[in-house]
């Protein structure tokens, strides 16, 4: 192995790091270390000049290992990989020390934070010593796409890709397309027909020459990597093998069951219905109480199961506007009825929504404001002296008075939550979930549809509640990514896979048992294990299981990690002596 010539760069990140870590001192200290040729600090390492600094140093000082201590590698590792490439150095001869998210931002003592930064960087320096150049490979992209979920997001994405002349496999677990949108009568805020918009799309998908549709179908685990996935789908008793290059997950969501909220008496009071039940009434043109009468008092309660940590802490985003839409539809169907709308904060934030709010106010709708966290409205049966069915006790925050609201029909604007089988799909395609069982996007802002698994995209309300326009935008955003990759034609594959040293392998086959991707097979002839580098995802479990140390997890080898531990627990002084 060549003599390591290490360059160390400590980033200020403006004041983000420099405030808590004495970056100048750290970089000076590190310069004393053996093999460290250059150690610098700079305001923004990730900026153009910052990167240029590294490139220049590599060229001028013949550096062959780089350590950048800055933010989390999850943010900027790639940035620096590219800079390394530009300087003609293999990007894997690089290591990042995370002294922002895991140091300067979480500590309050400058001295301690500085010490910790030093030790983290020492670990990184020690690790990078043993890094080896890994060659990237590029593979051709399979231009076919698998889309899971036939709701509005799935349909849009399918059409987008199919219209570009590319093949799409659309898998839907139910027997019809359209998802939740198919049950909705009108859109908000402009009150346009969903069916008129959706039905032609469904038609088009069914008849599209580039779309192969699988209804009542579930998918099995997908193997492979970006550009070359494969899976088995199960339709009744049939199993079909599919190969495709990219996956779009558009599995949508389900509605919250309000039965658990005692105050609302859902399930006990017959005229307390959920928004999805009411939507059905609207479509059927029959807005009636359980007894078959026209309701004279209709109350709509917002935030049922949303924005309350007992149920879901998040806001379900669409209910407020849907509720305003209902008020308008009720006014249209029941011109004489009294309509009450109990809200917590009116989320009228999109185009035309504030206007809808005002228009609704003008339609003789009484608004009440309650606290969705404590003091939920309480629905009780009215006694016979009243000529209405129920009374809702609401502490109206706008007047500070607790009032009773008469009601014949109560509509609960139920929260939206992740599907019960979200986990199953997550496993099948390899996406992560956040606390609420919604899928996590790669970056909440700059990469809202990609996931940490390349080639797998999450769109629509499976990643958080969304309205139709947002789902459509996201579906198309994912389609853009896929079309771009198809247009490009090939993709680079990560190479941090496991590899077997055949000389050391004793053929015990323990590794084969532990591999979750069946990426390891046994070569009968040589009597050793062999890793299929295309299927391997680089988790390293085989490496830690191998009794002889024959399997190396590239980029996380034993040598590298042991050395990192050593660095992490030593001081500059110790290393200097060594």
């Amino acid at each position, binding site marked *: 192995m060549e003599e390591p010539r290490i360059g160390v760069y400590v980033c200020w990140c403006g004041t983000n790091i420099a405030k808590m870590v004495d970056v100048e001192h750290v970089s000076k200290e590190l310069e004393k270390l053996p093999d460290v040729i250059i150690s610098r600090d700079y305001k923004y390492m990730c900026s153009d000049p910052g990167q240029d600094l590294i490139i220049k140093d590599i060229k001028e000082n013949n550096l062959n290992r780089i350590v950048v201590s800055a933010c989390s590698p999850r943010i900027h590792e790639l940035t620096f990989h590219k800079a390394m490439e530009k300087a003609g150095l293999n990007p894997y001869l690089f290591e990042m020390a995370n002294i922002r998210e895991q140091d300067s931002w979480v500590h309050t003592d400058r001295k301690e934070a500085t010490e910790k930064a030093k030790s983290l960087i020492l670990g990184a320096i020690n690790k990078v010593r043993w890094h080896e150049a890994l060659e990237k490979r590029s593979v051709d992209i399979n231009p076919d796409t698998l889309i899971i979920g036939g709701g509005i997001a799935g349909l849009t994405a399918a059409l987008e890709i199919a219209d570009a002349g590319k093949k799409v496999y659309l898998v839907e677990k139910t027997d019809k397309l359209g998802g939740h949108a198919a049950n909705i009568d009108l859109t908000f805020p402009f009150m346009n027909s969903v069916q008129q918009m959706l039905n032609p799309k469904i038609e088009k998908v069914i008849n599209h020459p580039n779309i192969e549709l699988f209804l009542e179908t579930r998918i099995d685990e997908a193997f492979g990597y970006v550009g070359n996935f494969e899976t088995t789908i199960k339709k009744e008793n049939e199993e079909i093998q599919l190969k495709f290059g990219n996956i779009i997950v558009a599995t949508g969501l389900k509605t919250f069951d309000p039965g658990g909220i005692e105050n609302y008496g859902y399930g006990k009071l017959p005229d307390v219905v959920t928004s999805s039940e009411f939507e059905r009434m609207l479509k059927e043109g029959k807005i009636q109480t359980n007894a078959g009468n026209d309701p004279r008092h209709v109350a709509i309660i917002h935030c049922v199961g949303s924005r309350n940590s007992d149920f879901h802490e998040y806001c379900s985003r669409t209910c407020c506007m849907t509720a305003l839409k209902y008020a308008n539809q009720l006014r249209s169907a029941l011109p004489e009825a009294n309509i009450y709308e109990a809200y917590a904060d009116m989320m009228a934030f999109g185009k035309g929504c504030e206007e809808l709010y005002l228009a609704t*106010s003008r339609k003789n709708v009484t608004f*009440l404001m309650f606290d969705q966290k404590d003091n939920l409205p309480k629905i009780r049966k009215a006694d016979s002296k009243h000529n209405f069915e129920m009374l809702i006790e609401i502490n109206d925050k706008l007047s500070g008075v607790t009032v009773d609201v008469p009601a014949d029909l109560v509509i609960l604007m139920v929260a939206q939550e992740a599907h019960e089988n979200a986990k199953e799909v997550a496993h099948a395609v390899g996406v992560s979930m956040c606390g609420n069982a919604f899928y996590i996007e790669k970056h909440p802002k700059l990469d809202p549809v990609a996931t940490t698994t390349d080639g797998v995209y999450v769109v629509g309300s499976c990643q958080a509640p969304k309205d139709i326009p947002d789902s459509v935008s996201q579906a198309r955003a994912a389609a853009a990514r896929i079309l771009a990759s198809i247009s490009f034609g090939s993709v680079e594959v990560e190479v941090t896979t496991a590899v077997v040293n055949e000389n050391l392998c004793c053929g015990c086959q323990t590794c084969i048992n532990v591999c979750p991707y069946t990426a390891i097979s046994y070569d009968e002839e040589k009597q050793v294990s062999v890793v299929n580098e295309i299927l391997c995802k680089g988790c390293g479990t085989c490496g830690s299981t191998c009794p002889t140390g024959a399997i190396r997890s590239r980029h996380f080898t034993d040598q590298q990690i042991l050395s990192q531990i050593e660095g992490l627990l030593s001081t500059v002084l110790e290393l200097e002596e060594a």
Partner: protein
Amino acid sequence: MNQLVNPELKQELLKYGLKEWNDCFHCGNCTAICSLTEQGFLFPRKGIRALQLGLKQSLAGSTDPWLCYYCGECTETCPRDANPAELMMSIRRYLTKVYDWTGLAGLFYRSKLALFIGFILVLIAVIAVGYVKHFETEALMKFGHLFEQLVILAVFGLILLPNIFHMFWLTIVKQKVKAPISAYITGIWHLIWNVFTQNRSLKCETGSFRWFEHFLIVIGYISLLFVTVFLNWFSTTNTIIIWLGYIVGGIVFVFTFHFIIGRLNKKREVTKYSHPSDWLFVIWLFLLGFTAFIVRVLIDTNLIDNNLWLYIIHLIVIAQWGILLVPFGKWTHFLYRSFAIYFAYLKKSALKRQGAI
């Protein structure tokens, strides 16, 4: 027992000049921009809220609507063009009806026809009296004076006083305001001071000229009442009183004329929206001052005998004013506001005692 939300209430208020009642989304801008609001007296928003929810008790038990002098700033800055100032006016009309035990105030606000009939009946009655008195100047003037005193007595004793008590009942007793006894006494001084100076309106953003106008009209009106009713202006020969009469009569009709012009121009927020009752009030006040002025001129130039019809008109105006507008019309705002200030004073003392403010 919680109050029941009552959507019917605004239906009722629609009859009192209410228009859009639900544009308000409760940002609180109006209350905060108003210079007259203070801790415990948050208007106009809370009044609008009570109206939206149909909380009759809260609405009837509140003195807030009377505390506003209508500078219009809340309406100008309202982000939803909900027109809070005008909503307050509608609530006041409604409250006038609530306080009034006879039910006539409500009837006249709701029905233009009833009001018209009332005016015609009074007109006929006055002419009838004239006929009975054979249209003799002396007798008529004597009758007129007596009539004025009787009407004032009757209106106050039979209608306004019970109404004030009703208002007291609704805003203080039913709301369980526990003010110290001393406040009832010190409050009276507060009441009188406010009646004569109208100084609350000085705080308004509309500035001192509007206060001055308002103040002069009130003073002018009270003085006119005093000189005509108690000093019998029309029969006196006391020069000071005659001159005083001229001045206050002049003031009343000049400034009411200015008010009318303002309402016609609709330039300022306060004059943009005029309910029929607003027109009636300013026009009749103007007529009152104007006819009194003319009649006095005629008396002093000894032309009155030949122009008795003018006196009869004056009498008709007075009668319509005294019998219809004072007890049942917008005139009451003068009285209710004054007492609202008194009751608010009590409420404030009660709140202070509780340590709430």
